[in-house]
């Protein structure tokens, strides 16, 4: 018989390295037609970092994502970066890029100020224009300013910057300190169906509410949540590296290492929790790892709700669940008073 259950997994997760310096440096070049090129040492591992970082630069410069080209991952030509790790790219590399873009923009402001007959501090960049704050009608197209900067004033608009999250080292005896500059929070709630005759679990749906600070690109955040959940399902129910008595792996292949396919995925509803972190680029934090953190917890709690058995070790395979169900039934039978 199939029994359904629901379970919550709630988590928090830090952004960046634990205490240790993990800087990112970046350079932003504004081309003489008002488009821009970003140089970053980060590596695109598939999560869409280059797109998000391009959006951050674009936002700072008041241009669109398509106006920005991002160049990455070459130790000869791009500035140093601690890497695509610890969910730090949007926050640390993003901050570095925002700061670098700001510096390049300031050169444009310096050049535009006399042309617009105001002080540089009165200017802002928006909608592909350099315009006066509070009186945007007085403006110049960014292309014109960039061209003027380079060819008339001899001041090409380029900026470099680096960012490292501020931390405080942890006391070696008590661990007290400020190991990270910011954290993200999330909850996933799972509904499962457990077959109490086979122990098999079907994850029916998951509602995921994730904080990532400002969502620079909500579509890509959804993708991260969905992908993270798939890894979480594998961790909860299927995946395990097995060793023989000599310490040699028995299943070092995809035939016998079971991981989620399209058939294993539940319906996923993603909510991005609205939040703004002033220490992040435009309020953003990060999302790469947190998405796979609470899934196993939610599923295992849902199994507990469905069939009343607590599985204490992962993966919660059908065999384990069935054995636990049988044990529970045996205990319940023993607890019943004997027939008169």
């Amino acid at each position, binding site marked *: 018989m199939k029994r359904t259950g629901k*379970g*919550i*997994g*709630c*988590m*928090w997760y830090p952004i960046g*390295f*634990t205490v240790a310096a993990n800087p990112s440096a970046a350079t932003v070049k504004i081309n003489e037609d008002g488009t821009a090129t970003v140089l970053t040492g980060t*590596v*695109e*591992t598939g999560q869409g970092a280059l*797109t998000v970082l391009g*959006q951050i630069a674009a936002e700072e410069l*008041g*241009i*669109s*994502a*398509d106006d920005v080209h991002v160049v990455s991952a*070459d*130790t000869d030509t791009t500035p140093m970066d*601690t890497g*695509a*790790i610890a969910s730090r790219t949007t926050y640390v590399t993003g901050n570095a890029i925002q700061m670098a873009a700001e510096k390049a923009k300031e050169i444009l402001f310096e050049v535009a100020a006399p042309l617009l007959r105001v002080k540089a501090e009165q200017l802002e960049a928006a909608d592909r224009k350099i315009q006066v704050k509070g009186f945007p009608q007085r403006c110049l197209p960014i292309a014109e300013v960039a061209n003027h900067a380079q060819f008339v004033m001899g001041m090409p608009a380029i900026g470099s910057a680096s960012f490292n999250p501020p931390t405080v080292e942890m006391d070696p005896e008590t*661990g*007290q300190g400020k*190991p*990270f500059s910011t954290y993200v929070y*999330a*909850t996933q*709630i799972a509904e499962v169906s457990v077959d109490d005759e086979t122990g098999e679990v079907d994850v029916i749906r998951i509602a995921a*509410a994730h904080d990532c*600070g400002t969502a*620079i690109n909500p*579509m*890509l955040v959804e993708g991260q949540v969905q992908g993270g959940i798939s890894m*979480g399902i*594998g*961790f909860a129910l299927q*995946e*395990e*590296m097995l*060793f023989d008595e000599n*310490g*040699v*792996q028995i*299943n*070092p292949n995809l035939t016998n290492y079971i991981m989620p396919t399209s058939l294993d995925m539940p319906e996923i*509803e993603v909510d991005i*929790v*609205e939040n703004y972190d002033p220490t992040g680029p435009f309020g*953003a*934090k990060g999302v790469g*790892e947190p998405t796979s*953190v*609470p899934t196993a917890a939610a599923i*295992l*709690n849902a199994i*507990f709700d469905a069939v009343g058995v*607590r599985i204490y070790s*992962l993966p919660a395979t059908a065999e384990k669940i069935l054995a636990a169900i049988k044990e529970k039934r045996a205990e319940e039978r023993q607890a019943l008073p004997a027939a008169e």
Partner: protein
Amino acid sequence: MDDNVKVVEAETSLEALREADEALRLPAVAEPITYPIETKVPDARQQTPAVGQRATRPDGRLHGLGQTKYIDDLSFPGMIHAKIKRAGIAHARIKSVDVSEAAKMPGVLATLVGAEIPVNSFGPSLQDQPVLASDIVYHAGDGVAAVAAVTEQLAADALEKITVEYEPMTPVFDPLEAMSDDAPKVHDPDSNIYATKVIKKGDVDKGFEDADHIFEATFRTQMVEHVPLEPHATIADWDGNGRLTLWSSLGRITMGRADVSRTLGLPYNRIRIIGTIVGGNFGGKNEITQEPILGLLSKKTGRPVKGVYSREDEFMSSTTRHPFIMEYKTGINSDGRIVARKVRLVCDGGAYCSWSETTLGKACILSAGPYNIDNLHVEAFAVYTNKTMTGAMRGFGAPQVCFAYESHMDDMAKELGIDPLEIRLLNAFEENAASPTGQVLESVVVKESLQIAAERFGWKD
């Protein structure tokens, strides 16, 4: 005069040859691939402001066209292929490595053993991992020799001809066993525990005394692998100025360059690492693996050398997620408020440290959950075992401890007769809460995430 006649004759024969061949001529290479060279840009990419746009990915377009060049898709003139021989034995002393038979095989251009590597150790915190094992093997996936050959198949065949003599040593596989004083020692003769972390806050013993109820449980998690669809891949090549260029699937090229500099004894400005596009990382491609090996093979042969991990290499010889053994003891009042928690984490640290220190540190901090707990004591240990090295994998210990503290929470909720959502809302961090390390937390939205998910899910229905 004579020469000109000869030239004319030669031209005539060439013409004749060409005519005869016309009918037989077939393209030796595929014709250029066609695709629309389109500058039509989706609206979301053209809007200002840029933040918040559901912008599509330009690299995503290329992925769908099949145009993205991952490292295995790159090829250079004269390029050859490398393969690494794996130990296949969990713990042993290497008595000898004989590559002579392999070296003799036609098509095999170079071999490499650990002793040839200038500095044969690396690691993000402890440099305890050899590039190629030369003295002792610490896990079955350790590389013990490498070959470079004209084709991948030849390189793989050549590995079979390498003979390694091992003197087996006693391995230890279980982390709890490995913690005991008389366990076989992996690296350090005194202890297999190579990292410890502690968090102490308040007075956990008094907290337990004061609490209405005490709950205890032990949770365990398993070793899993990242399984990026793209296996680890690297191409190495030198130029006449002694500059090494590496195309690599590494996720951290700045550190990678430092590691290559250290292992090969090169200044940083003689090394170039190009990151290219990676087919998935998840933490498993965050330290060097075969880069120094391919660098040396390339130097020996004067050719670009490509190495791509097989799927078996991925499982046996790349980092994995730490199995955790987690003991939780929680003091909680009848109203559901947690007053004290003691956690003991034992991380199976595998054969090498890799990212274990970071994992331990994070797991420790996160292990109490996003909940206000005034009295807390967490201790964590990373232990060497003779199994595949454990390293960074999506979450650095967080998925493991979250499984533990959330399961534990529901066990307590059930016993106390409190709804799982309510008990979490009661204990959750709020803005300016104190973290386990005494940090003042800002932009905290735990309760919001609980409520939004519950609403979306229909928790109350």
